[in-house]
């Protein structure tokens, strides 16, 4: 007789702050800008542990049964709110504590499990995924990551049960992408026991339900005799006097999600509710968003699969010209292209979630890559699904138009895709310089300072230029792996050339940044596909048994590398001056193009 208990879950580092030590935490994507391939960071593919897989299956089964009985996404979209049973059911299932550590009453899910569940919720109802994500991906994640023991004990158990819904308050009327431009202030009282919080936050998801807000505001400090303002994070009890909520915003999509303005007027926040140190707020916000973004990627991937599933069923059944429309190659092209990209997107968010769980890796650029790629995929795929459905695609009776509206938000929130592209390009360019001089500095905002470019160039010149290559990719993917390695080499050289040519002025050159970011995204996706497909072949036991996966890999990687090659080439050979002239003329005239001949 023997006795077994379930194998313990692999410990996850998902709830530890990561960027605390940027110098020591290696980053795969930063590496590729130096022409380096840190294969150890992306191989082997981080398969889920058996224990995680089993818990995940149970959670998904429970959620699906609940969703089938209770969630009517079309009705939620129509009503612009959730029926009480939906939120109550989510709380009852324990979903609100999914990624809150066990010792504070949560489930302590790994990033892989959490994001997979996020995807499932998003596929059932995107607005509900926002409810779930605004609460724990960003709303109370700051408390989990940076809270003191007392703060965690005070807030997290309530958050885990759903009794306290959390919201994240960063955006302001004058401060969206430029988060540091915030005007909200938190002024310490004379005795230092509290802060007086004033300001207006807009677009706050979950505001109407919130029991607690994570709020970012500027605290006045004196440094070297000069008055300065330092962004600081606070945990604000929603019951505090002085808080007023606006009416729910009328939105294009995710209508069930509650989004409002929150105004703080002389709200007294106890000093004990400050999250982290004065001046750490911006770093805290970024770290929360860095991991939060992965949820949007996972939800977008799953959403793509779901809406295309509708389109696939329709394409099999709808007959025109005496045959199913799915048999026409223009329809098959849409199916295949989205399939290969979904394969890539799934590979990348899973790989990145594995990094989050492993810890000791800087994954900030990887989550940004995943979010950009997946959000743009989901929007495009929803549109393709709508096109496959033809006229009924445009009808409110079918799910397609809602999918187009709902998926659109992911390109905007938790960092617009433009801002994330700039972040990818600039962080990567800045990194080597920062390494040299950042030791003393807790954090620097890559979009506001790009000081050490000069030292980067010097460092790069000294560096041995060795050609990168893959050693761990399955032989069946040798050609693809070689192509990726070659592009990484080219990217390293191109970055160097760019810095030499433009120096610091590269901060202003977003045409270039966009191309750098796009190349990096495609490379990271391709690398994730190499890693995952290698794992799939090993798992399946033979190349033949993984034919479906290999087909996706062999379609995706060459296409992605063609895009990347074009982007890298366009760093040198481009029409940027002319593009700029056209854009500036249009802005000047507030008229897009030269007058139409019909108007002459």
């Amino acid at each position, binding site marked *: 007789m023997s*006795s077994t208990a*379930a194998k313990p879950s692999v410990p996850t580092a998902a709830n530890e702050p990561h960027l605390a030590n940027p110098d020591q935490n290696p980053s795969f994507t930063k590496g590729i800008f130096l022409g380096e391939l840190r294969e150890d960071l992306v191989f082997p593919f981080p398969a889920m542990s058996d224990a995680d897989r089993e818990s995940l299956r*149970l959670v998904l089964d429970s959620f699906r049964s609940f969703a089938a009985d209770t969630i009517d996404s079309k009705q939620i979209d129509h009503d612009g709110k959730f029926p009480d049973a939906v939120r109550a059911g989510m709380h009852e*299932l324990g979903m609100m504590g999914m990624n809150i550590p066990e010792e504070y009453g949560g489930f302590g899910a790994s990033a892989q499990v959490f994001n997979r569940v996020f995807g499932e919720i998003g596929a059932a109802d995107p607005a509900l995924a926002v409810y779930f994500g605004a609460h724990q991906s960003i709303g109370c994640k700051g408390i989990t990551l940076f809270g003191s023991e007392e703060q965690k004990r005070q807030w997290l158990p309530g958050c885990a049960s759903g009794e306290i819904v959390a919201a994240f308050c960063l955006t302001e009327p004058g401060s969206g992408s430029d988060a540091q431009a915030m005007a909200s202030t938190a002024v310490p009282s004379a005795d230092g026991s509290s802060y007086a919080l004033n300001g207006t936050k807009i677009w706050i998801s979950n505001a109407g339900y919130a029991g607690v807000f994570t709020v970012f505001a500027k605290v006045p400090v004196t440094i070297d005799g000069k008055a300065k303002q330092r962004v600081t994070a606070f945990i604000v009890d929603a019951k505090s006097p002085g808080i007023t909520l606006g009416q729910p915003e009328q939105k294009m999509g995710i209508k069930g999600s509650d989004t409002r303005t929150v105004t703080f007027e002389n709200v007294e926040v106890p000093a004990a509710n400050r999250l982290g140190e004065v001046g750490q707020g911006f770093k805290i916000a970024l770290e929360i968003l860095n991991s939060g973004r992965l949820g949007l990627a996972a939800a977008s991937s799953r959403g793509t699969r779901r809406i295309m599933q509708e389109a696939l069923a329709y394409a099999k059944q709808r007959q025109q010209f005496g045959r199913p429309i799915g048999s026409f190659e223009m329809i098959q092209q849409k199916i295949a292209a989205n399939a290969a990209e979904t394969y890539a997107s799934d590979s990348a968010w899973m790989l990145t979630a594995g990094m989050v769980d492993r810890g000791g890796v800087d994954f900030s650029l990887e989550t940004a890559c995943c979010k950009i790629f997946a959000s743009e995929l989901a929007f495009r795929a929803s549109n393709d699904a709508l096109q496959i459905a033809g006229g009924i695609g445009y009808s409110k009776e079918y799910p397609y138009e809602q999918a187009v509206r709902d998926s659109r938000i992911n390109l905007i929130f938790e960092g617009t895709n433009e801002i994330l592209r700039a972040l990818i390009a600039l962080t990567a360019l800045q990194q080597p310089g920062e390494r040299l001089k950042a030791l003393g500095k807790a954090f620097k905002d890559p979009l506001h300072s790009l000081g050490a470019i000069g030292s980067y160039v010097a460092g790069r010149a000294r560096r041995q230029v060795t050609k990168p290559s893959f050693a761990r990719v399955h032989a069946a993917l040798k050609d693809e792996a070689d192509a990726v390695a070659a592009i990484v080499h080219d990217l390293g050289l191109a970055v160097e050339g760019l810095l030499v040519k433009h120096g610091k002025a590269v901060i202003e050159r977003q045409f270039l940044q966009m191309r750098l970011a796009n190349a990096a995204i495609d490379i990271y996706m391709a690398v994730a596909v190499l890693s995952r497909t290698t794992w799939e072949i090993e798992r399946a036991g033979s190349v033949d048994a993984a034919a479906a996966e290999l087909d996706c890999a062999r379609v995706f990687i060459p296409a992605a590398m063609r895009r990347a090659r074009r982007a890298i080439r366009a760093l040198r050979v481009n029409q940027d001056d002319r593009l700029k002239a056209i854009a500036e003329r249009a802005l000047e005239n507030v008229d897009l193009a030269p007058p139409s001949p019909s108007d002459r």
Partner: protein
Amino acid sequence: MKIAVCIKRVPVMDVRFRIAADGKSVDETGLKYDVNDFDLWAVEAALQLKEKTGDGEVVVFSLGPDAVQEQIRKALSMGADRGVQLKADRAPADPLSIAKALAAELKASQWDVVFFGKVAIDSADQSVGPMVAELLGLPCVSAISSLDIANGRGTAKRELESASEIVEFPLPVVLTVDEGLNKERLPNLKGIMAAKKKPLEVKPAQLDAGTVNVVAMELPAERAAGRIIGEGAAAVPELVRLLQTEAKVL
């Protein structure tokens, strides 16, 4: 109250089944598994009974390979206290073999109620529960759709063809559960976490060779494709005629 529930791991039925190369078993590649529906209602009944009486223990048994631990843990996630796997390479085709192995294990303790599902949706024998009752020398009430237990006695309803009957019985008893008795609870995250820490004992199943064997398996004949008769009101008379003469359902 000491309550045993015997559960079976079965394939989820929303797939097309294929017959394996041996011609007498199901090809398991790509199948997903879950707890047999009727057994989930049995677990739910056991949990409700425990909750009502306020004390006691719900123990879940399942016979089969290590994979059945997943189904046992699902029952533990719902709230059962501990699990026992009777380890065997596979659940044999002869229900009497299974019943003997379960009875041998159940005999070791005193139970107030032993629950089964009425039927396993894969093998459809409907016999393991009643056989175990026989082997344990206990009364058996099969296919119950309502249940009330108090003061050492129970009352249950059984759905018959166009009628139902109410039966009374003493404890201990073996009950097999029909549809409609309850709706099973969903394991929530807390339950799933708690289940990981609950004891799950593994013992070899005392299986005999059995005398009933599956010798061949066949798939049902393909259904004829549907036919579109026409559109709108004009098609109705023809539809009615065909439903009467061809399909013979009217």
